[in-house]
Structure formats: structure tokens, C-alpha cells
């Protein structure tokens, strides 16, 4: 009985923390961007502007949720749910600490890859169902981008799988007791980080929603809480990619003195700030540059990493 209760507490805790975090990240991102761009950012509402998030939340919940009459209604509604669903499901396999985490799947890493490939439907269907040229172009770009970057995202992780000998994320964390995988799998780390940014379509890979050319890309027609779900989905995806990089390359919960959960949160927070710094400092790529960068540079690098890791693993046996 207590086992079931502990499990339920885990699920509720993970969900609660994640949804709060997604809201808090809006604030963190705005303040950090302001800091790096040498301005103040939101600092008027409440102490240090902390209540700005609450104000934004109230605004987005009470806004009119308009569904365009020319759109495909059921698909239009399902699309934002898919991104939230797939990202939140992916968190189920993340091991936050030795006893904290929702599911302990033997195919944990594959589960994440499956969920991230299902997430593509969200942007594709959102773009299609809006029945709007800008949205359709944004959806097409997003689909092509995510499909291409998924290929070497999966390939870059196989080096880690080879070293740990398992798809289970807990086993992978335990295999990093002596050395974090960021050292032997440095190429894998670089490729996975780039692919992760592209999967979450953040700057410099935010072509699908490039506001200078496509209005807002696939979510041009979305308003109110449906737009909010895309927005929250993006922040959750950033958290997910950061948490995965920590799990796969930076030893997960492992670290001296502090409790495991604190280590995990600290490492993830540093990576999230890194994501924000990227947004603050890099310009947007052109679309053909993005595609040729993916296929002509990242894919060969991922394959090379796979080849070298495979050779070393075979040689050591």
C-alpha cells in the first residue's frame, strides 16, 4: 500500500514541480535576457517583479480563446495537447534521484525518443489545421527540421548506450560513477545539445516561428490558453532536454556532500541558463543553412562518434 502511495506522490510531485517550473521559467528567461542585454526586464510587479508571472497567467487564462472559423476545429484543438502530453510523458522516465522518478523502464531512452518523434505531430497538425499560409509554412519547416534533427539526435545517444550497456536511464546514471560521460562522449554531447535545441525550436533554430518572416509560424492562429500550451510546452521541452543532458552526460544525481535531488536540480538549472544565454547571444540561421548544417556536418559527426565508440568498446572486451 505504501508503495502505491509513494508512487502516486512521485507522480504528483513531478507534475506539480514541472508545471510550476514552466511558469517560473518565463520569468527567469525574461530577467536573464534583460541582464545579458543590459536592461532591467520586468521588475515592477511585486518584489523583484516576481509577481509578473502571476499577472501573465491571469491574463492568458482570461483571454478570449478564439478558434478561427476557417480552421479544422478538432485537429486545431488536439495539436497543442499533443506537445504538452508528449513532453510530460517523457519526464516519466527521467531518474531525478535514487528513489525519485515515475517509471523505471528498461527502454527508457527509446521511450524518450519515441515521445519526441510523436511531438512532431503537434506542430505539423497545428500548421495544417490553421488553414493559413504562414501557419502552413511554419508547420512544414518545423516538421522537416524536427525530422532531420531527430535522426542524429538518436545516433548521438547510442555512444552513451554502448558505454553503459543499457537503455535504462538509471543504469546509465549508475555507470557514470567513476567518470561522467561528457568526457568520453564529448562529440555525442555536442551533437545531442544541438539536436536538442533544434527539437525545441529555440533560437538559433527557431525558423518555424520566425516572426520576421512568418508572423508566428505554426501558432499564428492560436490565442489564449491554446497558445499558452505551446508556450509552456516549449519551456517544458527545454527543461526536458536539460534534464536529459544531465542524466546522460553529467552523472545525473551524482555529486558530493549535497543530497542527490539538489545536485540534479542544480545541474539542470545551469543548463537551462545556458539555453537562455544561447537565445540572448545568437542570431537566427537561414533555413537552407539549418538543413545543410544538420545533414552535412552533424550527421557525419554523430556517425563518426558512433564508429569510434564502437571500436573502443569492442577493443576493451
Amino acid at each position: 500500500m505504501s508503495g502505491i502511495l509513494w508512487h502516486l506522490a512521485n507522480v504528483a510531485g513531478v507534475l506539480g514541480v514541472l508545471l510550476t517550473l514552466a511558469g517560473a521559467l518565463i520569468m527567469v528567461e525574461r530577467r536573464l535576457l534583460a541582464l545579458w542585454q543590459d536592461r532591467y526586464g520586468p521588475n515592477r510587479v511585486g518584489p523583484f517583479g516576481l509577481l509578473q508571472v502571476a499577472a501573465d497567467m491571469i491574463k492568458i487564462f482570461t483571454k478570449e480563446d478564439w478558434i478561427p472559423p476557417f480552421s479544422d476545429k478538432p485537429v486545431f484543438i488536439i495539436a497543442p495537447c499533443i506537445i504538452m502530453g508528449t513532453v510530460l510523458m517523457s519526464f516519466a522516465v527521467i531518474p531525478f534521484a535514487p528513489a525519485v522518478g515515475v517509471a523505471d523502464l528498461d527502454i527508457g531512452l527509446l521511450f524518450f525518443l519515441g515521445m519526441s518523434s510523436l511531438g512532431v505531430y503537434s506542430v505539423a497538425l497545428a500548421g495544417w489545421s490553421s488553414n493559413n499560409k504562414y501557419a502552413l509554412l511554419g508547420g512544414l519547416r518545423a516538421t522537416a527540421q524536427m525530422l532531420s534533427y531527430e535522426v542524429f539526435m538518436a545516433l548521438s545517444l547510442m555512444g552513451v548506450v554502448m558505454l553503459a550497456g543499457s537503455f535504462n536511464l538509471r543504469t546509465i546514471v549508475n555507470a557514470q560513477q567513476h567518470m561522467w560521460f561528457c568526457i568520453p562522449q564529448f562529440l555525442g554531447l555536442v551533437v545531442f545539445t544541438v539536436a536538442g535545441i533544434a527539437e525545441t525550436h529555440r533560437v538559433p533554430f527557431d525558423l518555424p516561428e520566425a516572426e520576421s518572416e512568418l508572423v508566428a509560424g505554426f501558432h499564428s492562429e492560436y490565442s489564449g490558453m491554446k497558445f499558452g500550451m505551446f508556450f509552456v510546452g516549449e519551456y517544458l521541452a527545454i527543461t526536458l532536454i536539460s534534464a536529459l543532458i544531465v542524466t546522460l552526460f553529467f552523472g545525473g544525481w551524482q555529486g558530493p556532500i549535497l543530497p542527490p535531488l539538489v545536485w540534479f536540480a542544480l545541474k539542470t538549472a545551469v543548463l537551462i541558463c545556458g539555453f537562455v544565454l544561447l537565445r540572448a547571444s545568437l542570431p537566427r540561421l537561414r533555413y537552407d543553412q539549418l538543413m545543410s548544417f544538420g545533414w552535412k556536418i552533424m550527421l557525419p559527426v554523430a556517425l563518426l562518434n558512433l564508429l569510434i565508440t564502437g571500436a573502443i568498446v569492442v577493443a576493451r572486451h
Partner: protein
Amino acid sequence: MNAVFYIAAAVAVVSTVMVVTRANAVYALMYLIVSLLSVALIFFVLGAPFIAALEVIIYAGAIMVLFVFTIMMLNLGPKAVHQESQWLSGRMWIGPSILVAVLIGEMLYVLWGGEHPVEGRHIVEPREVSLALFGPYIMIVELSSMLLLGGLVAAYHLGRRVRGDVKEPKS
């Protein structure tokens, strides 16, 4: 677990029927995705988690995305839906129905004497799958990789721009 199997199987059957009967191509594809996901769940319940994950990643996550992508590019309107629904009516159901009836008959015959599909399962780990693929079946893996490479080269050849035909964007 038996209940999970039967529910997933029912979802698979219903969604596959919906794939055939939808006139709008995007709806049909969405039902096909649901069908593939429920088949993945069936694999999982039957003790093949690795195959279940591959089903989601490759079929539902990659191949079907390409289908959706193509349909989006064509951007079919209400005219195509009308045309499609005209094709679906009438006598074209007779042939497939007979074939399906034969398959159902065979399945019933097998179920009559055979074992229960869910019980007596044994969980197949990713390790076992790869040992089988790169052990006794290595020739098939290599042959299919040659086939894929051939397809890739052919696609590149077909998609290649002839020099001077269209100005290529600088990258």
C-alpha cells in the same frame, strides 16, 4: 494484462476501420497513427518492449510524419474529400470484404486449436534482439542495409539539380 491486450486490440481494429472509411486524408492518417500506437502497446504487453519502442519511433514517429508532411504539401481542399467519398461508396467493398472474411476464418481456426496469445509470454530484451540480428541474421541485415543505401543514392540522383538549371542558394 489480458484486459490491456484486448482493449489495445479493440482500439487497433476500430482505428484501422476508421482509416479505411475516412474521406479526409489527414483524418485517415491520424487514425492510422492511433492504430500503430495500439499495435505498439500490444507488442509491449506480449513481452517485446524493444519492438514496441521501434514501432513508435519508426512507424508512428518517422514514416507517418512523412505521410502527413506530403499531405500537408499537397494541401488538399474540400474537393478532394468529395472525390474520395465518392470512391468509397458502392461495390468496391465486395472484394476486400471477401478477403477479410477468409482471414477471419483462418484466425478463428488457429484460435480454436492454438494457444492463448497472451499467456506464456517471455520478455525479449533489446540485447537479445541485437544478438539475433547480428548473429544468425547478419546476412539479412547487411542485405537490407545495401538496399537502403541503394534507395538513398537513387533518391539523391533523382533530387539532384542539373548544373545551370536552377541557381542553387549559397550555403
